[in-house]
């Protein structure tokens, strides 16, 4: 609510909605989803508390309630929740890719429309987490369809990111490298998601490691990767110092190798039938080597993250001093000193012109 109100009511003069940075748009859509989707979780938790402590039977099938009811309530929250997690990650990528391609984002209006579309459709796909529960062919088909439809605006976004890169002058600094990894990894994650959206395929692989591999591919491969890019990109703004490129490269390569070792190969035991949440397994099923590789990948990722933490700590004290705009970016936050003073802007800026629609708008600001 705070974010939506701020973005709607507190924009400076000249900052029309069509000039707002895409990150802000995506935070607004995310916040909108939170508005709608968190209440079912709260309601379900209250019902669960009544069941547990006050003798209710909402979810008790033997007493006339339904355990499937919990699933519906939970996933009406749970699916939009993952879109709440991924949309800000899209926002980071929307800000970083144009700056490091020296080009405005391709197709700003389509990006806004796609983001809002993803927000709305995400509220209608929840039961693809429940294909094995027995909703019947009509129910299953609706959710298969809705889930496949959400891939359309998502595909538009991926296409636009690629189109932004095409013809741009690409600068391979660490934030950009994480965003390029994001593009590839998010695409693969989306593809395994669409595979899982086919109900019969889902019946075979429900609650297997294929599902675990899919959602970790999105969460770690897309969201966490974009997040690392965002850390490297905005760290100079927050602290006034740049993070080390060299350590950043170590972080990037260790993490990417580890990520792929772990999560690429995690799909295989899933396809070979390994269920989720088992604490051990018998030898002889063909799962052993895959699990071992997955574990080794985890070590690489840990090493990468340790590099990252070390980079953040060390750069705070000994990083190269950044000016107010080390990346030559063009959104308003780069016009403030690094770090920004507590009042943000000494004089409210006025955004005068729009080069093209999109984030390339504050080249001419009067402060």
């Amino acid at each position, binding site marked *: *609510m*705070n*974010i939506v*109100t*701020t*973005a709607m*009511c*507190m*924009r*400076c*003069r000249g*900052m029309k909605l069509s000039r*707002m*940075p895409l*990150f*802000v748009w995506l*935070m607004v859509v*995310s916040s909108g989803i939170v508005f709608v989707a968190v209440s079912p979780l709260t309601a379900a938790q209250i019902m*669960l508390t009544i069941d547990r402590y006050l003798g209710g039977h909402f979810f008790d099938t033997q007493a006339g309630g339904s*355990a499937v009811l*919990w699933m519906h309530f*939970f*996933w009406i929250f*749970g699916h939009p929740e993952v879109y*709440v*997690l991924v949309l*800000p990650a899209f926002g*980071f990528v929307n800000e970083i890719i144009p700056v490091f391609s020296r080009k405005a984002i391709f197709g700003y209006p389509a990006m806004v429309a796609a983001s809002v579309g993803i927000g709305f459709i995400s509220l209608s796909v929840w039961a693809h987490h429940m294909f094995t529960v027995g909703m019947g062919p009509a129910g299953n088909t609706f959710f298969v369809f809705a889930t496949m439809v959400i891939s359309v605006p998502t595909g538009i976004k991926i296409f636009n990111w690629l189109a932004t890169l095409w013809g741009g002058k690409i600068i391979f600094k660490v934030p950009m490298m994480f965003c390029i990894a994001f593009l590839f990894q998010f695409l693969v994650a989306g593809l395994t998601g669409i595979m899982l959206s086919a109900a019969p395929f889902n019946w075979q692989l429900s609650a297997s490691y294929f599902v675990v591999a899919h959602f970790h591919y999105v969460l770690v491969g897309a969201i966490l990767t974009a*997040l690392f890019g*965002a850390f490297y990109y*905005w760290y100079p703004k*927050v*602290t*006034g110092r740049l993070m080390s490129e060299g350590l950043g490269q170590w972080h990037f390569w260790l993490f990417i190798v580890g990520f792929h070792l772990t999560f690429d190969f995690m799909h295989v035991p899933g396809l070979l039938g390994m269920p989720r*949440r088992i*604490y*051990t*397994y*018998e*030898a*002889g099923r063909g799962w*052993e080597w895959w*699990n071992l590789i*997955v*574990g080794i990948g*985890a070590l690489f990722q*840990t090493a990468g993250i340790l590099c990252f933490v070390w980079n953040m700590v060390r750069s*705070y*004290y000994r990083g190269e001093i950044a000016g107010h705009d080390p990346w030559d970016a063009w*959104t*308003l936050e780069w016009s*403030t000193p*690094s*770090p*920004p003073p*507590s*009042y*943000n*802007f000494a004089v*409210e800026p006025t955004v005068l012109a729009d080069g093209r629609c999109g984030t390339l708008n504050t080249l001419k600001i009067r402060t």
Partner: protein
Amino acid sequence: MTNGHPVLEAIDQTVEARRRPRMDVVYGWVSTVDHKKIGLMYIVYALIFLVIAGLQAMLMRIQLAVPNNHFVSPQVFNRLFTMHGTTMVFFVGMPILFGFGNYLVPLMIGARDMAFPRLNAFSFWISAFGGFLLYFSYLGGDGLYGAGSAPDVGWFAYAR
């Protein structure tokens, strides 16, 4: 004393040439309504939980690296994956992304702060309390599934 370090200078700006007393700095952070400080608190809070949940993941991976392993018991393993999932979604994912949002949204639109700064601060502290409460369950009294146990039913709680 600040060695030209920009952030320390910003903190010192209201005091002439002396270091502020440490309690003042702590109180400044605890009582802040500045969206930038709140955003940073969310991010640091999330990074701490990222490390904890990452350790939970490593423990699970060690247990599953070879067949018929006995590195952790089944009960502990159940708690590990439940807490790993719950922590990562609610105490890493959401805070870190809303922390970035808190920091950047006002700056990107040319505003002084968020629309409701005190609500912002309250939201942070109440979610910090929530994280503490969940992890307290590792130590706390008789749970539904045994004494002093964290939840062990999976993050989406399909209780058996």
